[in-house]
């Protein structure tokens, strides 16, 4: 499936979601803001997703779903996140997290049951979270022990999305004491009825229903066990690599809408005799966010592709994406808020979706492994992370960065808990820079800075003791972790840009192929853009910004998305509506 096919699939989905500007439409920003304001589930919008069969995207091909390639999953679901991150989370993404554990370790029967439920538009809840332990699910206290009819349970889960309605629930429970080990169970509500507790009120994602569940007195048959007894944490740590790479890719959609809302305002608003967008600072800020958004797409999509290609490094790539992308995008939302001025603060009116995204977004940042958890995963494994071959394997690199090369169906069994082997993405930073042709002075200076950082990182990591890399290790390891994640992102951007250059594919690719975008994106990756003060940035000439701004304006006027697909959000045709495939 080529990139063109993915774009058509996304456009088909957007066509079915309808006009986001039309207040009568269930999947419009105005309606979704109304649902949020009322603190209610967006039932009508969910019905549309159900009708379209969006959840098929979560189900592997062999179980009658559409899921083949993980990078496509992010691209497609991004269309839902552009409408409303809470809709994306509430309708589907927690189901995907739950399902991922089943695809990784479930029995054929469990897989079929989960697939059937998702395809019919139902939900699977993922019952891991206990308020007392948060991200540290290895300490979870809900307990299961063998009983006459299978397993008996005790304890409570908290803040579980869809616990009130999910027909299936994946329950994480402690099954051995010494050493502490957990197992996963698939609870089928049609067989084991029990009520969910009261809803939690949250500052954002108010359309989601997060509630507590009590497992006291629940018993489940042996067949409910997902994977091996006491193997639950291993299953989760493997399966969640997929969702940790894909969730930030979907989150790009939320920032797409934040950027669109702000850019529309800036173009239309006149201050001091100019339109706001004519002010160079505003224009350059918009361009910076646009460039970051494309880079975030490329980095998360590359990590998703790498889960197919280099699964032995999957724990690193997924953690690096979840570590870096949400933070960068959140900073971008703050920058956009500065431009939007007082409008970012209003819950009514045509910019109201912005404050909703601002409230919803932290759920994507703190949820499903917060930054510190990802950092801990990365810092512990830094020596493996920076291990690379001297000579890059060109076919391998091609498969990673040429998105037209199909990867086939994802094999969930290949996921590994810890990283091993060598890192193709890290090595590709060097080859990507070497392969870049006609490098001008500015780009050369940026490349030099990246290469210096890479040298610094490798020499720093070599000198670091395991203790230093631990949870109670040094600040230097934190810095090294951040540099590592940023270098991976830079590597993805440079190599993807090189591929787009040689292929010269289409509008989205033209931007990525350009020096202008690459320079601005890499400067963003090198640090907080607002404070950059190396010569190269201040002199990063206006021509670069203007070139990328032209593209931004063109996408705004054509209702095209700001991500690497540049798909049309308001397609005038509907002929592909039955052909959604990913």
């Amino acid at each position, binding site marked *: 499936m080529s990139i063109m096919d993915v774009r058509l699939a996304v456009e088909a989905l957007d066509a079915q979601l309808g006009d986001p500007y039309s207040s009568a439409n269930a999947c419009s920003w105005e309606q979704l803001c109304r649902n949020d304001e009322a603190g209610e589930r967006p039932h009508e919008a969910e019905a549309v997703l159900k009708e379209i069969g969006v959840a098929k995207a979560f189900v592997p091909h062999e179980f009658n779903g559409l899921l083949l390639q993980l990078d496509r999953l992010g691209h497609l679901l991004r269309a839902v996140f552009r409408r409303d991150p809470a809709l994306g989370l509430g309708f589907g993404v927690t189901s995907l997290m739950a399902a991922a554990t089943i695809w990784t370790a479930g029995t054929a029967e469990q897989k079929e049951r989960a697939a059937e439920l998702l395809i019919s538009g139902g939900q699977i809840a993922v019952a891991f979270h206990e*308020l007392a332990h948060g991200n540290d699910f290895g300490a979870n206290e809900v307990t299961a022990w063998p009983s006459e009819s299978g397993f008996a349970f005790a304890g409570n889960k908290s803040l579980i999305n869809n616990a009130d309605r999910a027909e299936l629930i994946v329950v994480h429970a402690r099954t051995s004491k010494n050493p502490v080990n957990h197992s996963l169970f698939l609870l089928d509500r049609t067989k084991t009825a029990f009520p969910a507790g009261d809803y939690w009120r949250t500052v*954002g994602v108010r359309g989601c229903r997060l509630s507590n569940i009590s497992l006291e007195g629940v018993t489940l048959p042996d067949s409910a066990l997902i994977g091996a007894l006491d193997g639950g944490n291993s299953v989760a740590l493997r399966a969640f690599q997929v969702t940790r790479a894909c969730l930030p890719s979907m989150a790009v959609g939320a920032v797409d809408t934040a950027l669109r809302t702000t850019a529309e305002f800036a173009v239309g608003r006149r201050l001091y005799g100019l339109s706001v967008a004519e002010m160079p600072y505003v224009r350059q800020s918009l361009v910076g966010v646009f460039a970051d958004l494309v880079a975030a797409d490329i980095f998360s999509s590359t990590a998703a592709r790498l889960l197919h290609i280099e699964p032995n490094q999957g724990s690193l790539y997924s953690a690096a994406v979840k570590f870096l992308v949400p933070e960068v995008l959140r900073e971008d939302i703050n920058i956009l808020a500065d431009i939007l001025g007082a409008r970012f603060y209003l819950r009514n009116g045509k910019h109201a979706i912005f404050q909703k995204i601002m*409230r919803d977004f932290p759920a994507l940042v703190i949820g499903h492994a917060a930054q510190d958890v990802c950092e801990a995963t990365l810092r512990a494994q830094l020596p493996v992370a920076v291990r690379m071959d001297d000579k890059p394997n060109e076919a391998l690199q091609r498969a990673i960065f040429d998105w037209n090369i199909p990867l086939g169906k994802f094999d969930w069994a290949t996921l590994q808990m810890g990283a091993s082997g060598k890192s193709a993405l890290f090595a590709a930073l060097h080859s990507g820079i070497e392969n870049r042709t006609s490098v001008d002075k500015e780009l050369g200076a940026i490349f030099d800075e990246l290469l210096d950082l890479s040298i610094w990182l490798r020499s720093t990591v070599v000198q670091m003791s395991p203790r230093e890399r631990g949870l109670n290790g040094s600040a230097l390891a934190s810095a090294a972790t951040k540099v590592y994640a940023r270098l991976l992102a830079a590597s993805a951007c440079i190599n993807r840009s090189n591929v787009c250059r040689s292929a010269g594919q289409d509008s989205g690719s033209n931007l990525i192929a350009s020096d202008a975008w690459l320079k601005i994106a890499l400067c963003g990756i090198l640090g907080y853009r607002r404070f950059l*003060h190396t010569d190269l940035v201040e002199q990063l000439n206006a021509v670069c910004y203007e070139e990328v701004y032209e593209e931004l304006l063109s996408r705004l006027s054509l209702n095209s998305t700001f991500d690497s697909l540049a798909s049309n959000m308001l397609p005038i045709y509907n002929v592909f509506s039955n052909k959604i495939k990913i």
Partner: protein
Amino acid sequence: MTELKVNSSELQINSSPADALEKYLGDPRNPKSPISVESLISSDLEEKFPDGSVGILNNWGVSKWFVPKNLGGELVSMADSSHLMRAISRRDLTLAIAYGKTYLGSVPVWLAGTPSMQISLADFVIGGGAVCLALTERQHGADLLNIDTGAELIGEHYSISGEKWLINNASRAGRITILAKERARSGPRSLSLLHFSKDDIVGNYKNLSKEHTLGIRAADISGFALTNALVGKDALLGEAGSGFEIIIKSLQLTRVSCCALSLGAGDHAVRIASAYIRSRYIYHRLAIDIAMVRRRLSRAALMVLIADALSTWAFKIADHNPELLVTASPVAKIMVPFLVQRAIDECEYVLGSRSYIMGSGITAPFQKISRDHRLVALFDGSTTVNLQSLIVQFRSLAAGFDKPHEPPEALFKGPNINCGLDALRLMPGTKTQDPVWSIYRSSLFTQLPQDLCKALERLHLFTKALHADMKNPVHGSIPSGAGSFSVAWRYCLAYSAASLVHAILEAPESLDAWGGSRWVIAAIDLLCNFHQNYIDSLEIDLIPELMNCLEDKKLLSLDRPAVADSL
């Protein structure tokens, strides 16, 4: 460290009114206290204005500190008034913003009103009346020169028509200070400021409905429309056509007063996160025993301390040398909310899902602080507006920087000139050196501990490079590009670091209260390297001092006054 003392007796801040208010208001965690966190969270949820809490502040007499002494009030120093506001904002930002607005609406009258108008307003404010400041309009935002609201002098009256929008307290206020255009005039001299009581309006006045907002949900954020509304011509402030100038001067003062809002929010957020990590057990230990968590929270505390030092400097400038507000005011308005927002963000990572749920318990107020505080960077001149105001001064500031560094003592020895209210000398284009850079005078370097001295040298290099960049003619074009804005950000970073050095020179005991000079060095390095990835490599641990602060019931600030708080 005593050798560093520079007339500290004279410069010491008398914080007793804030102490008294703090005692009066009591422990905000106790639902029975006059102003409790619990009641303010519920007023936020219900979007119900906290009338009861405003009444309590009025009973105590907080609004006296909005009124100059010569008019019967207590306003003598910006620091005193701001510390009072901080005692409120550390309990609830919505309340502080709603209550403090009266000061913003009154300042133009203190600056330019007739004696009789001043006396009448003083009585009104001391009596607990609310005043709103009506500048912004739906279509023009910060672009005050292009407002549409018109005022026409007809005989003995001004006839005012137009709509003011997103006005804090517009509906509740009994008095209005409004900016309007006199049609007969053009350019900046076409704007006039008028102040009048709503009761005195003859003709059509209509409140606009409340706007629903992301934060400060309980506040009265609305507006009003006037249609040929008549007010007496004595409503005019200053001369006809001087409205813009008066507003610019007022904003220089009121922007500084906004610091108090952020400082209270910063104290509250870090206090919650600090209390949380003491009892949070995760990864087989208390969160307080995890280095990554300690660093995050230490960075948060550091940001609040820098914000406190910068605010203290700005308050002092307002009190003693208001002509220097041209730099101090925008820098403070940019950096204090910025640093505190960063601190809040770090706390959010520490609190995880507890930063997101509207539950109960010690972390419950956090999500509200985070929403409320985002507004502070926006009102009374946004970050962008303030950065631009610095950029236009680059050339003169850079020229001034080349002059010799003078010690700052002389600067602050003059009589307190009434919070800048009676002597606003606006001096844009001044070519003298900003005294904030007096920390680079060579005599100082010999007095300081060696490690601090080294950090100061790094800061000096950063400042010199910055000023060299400020001379680049590329910054002359208005509106400016991102390059100019990033230089302006760097100016703010350097200025903040310098103000921190002033703060510890004047109160060396604050060094020890926060564990010696290492935190100041960390702050300098943090500010000079804000753009870098390696910022995380900062080894900083303020947790022991932070815990002392909580246990001793002290405010998270350099001078650590007592607070009544069970957290």
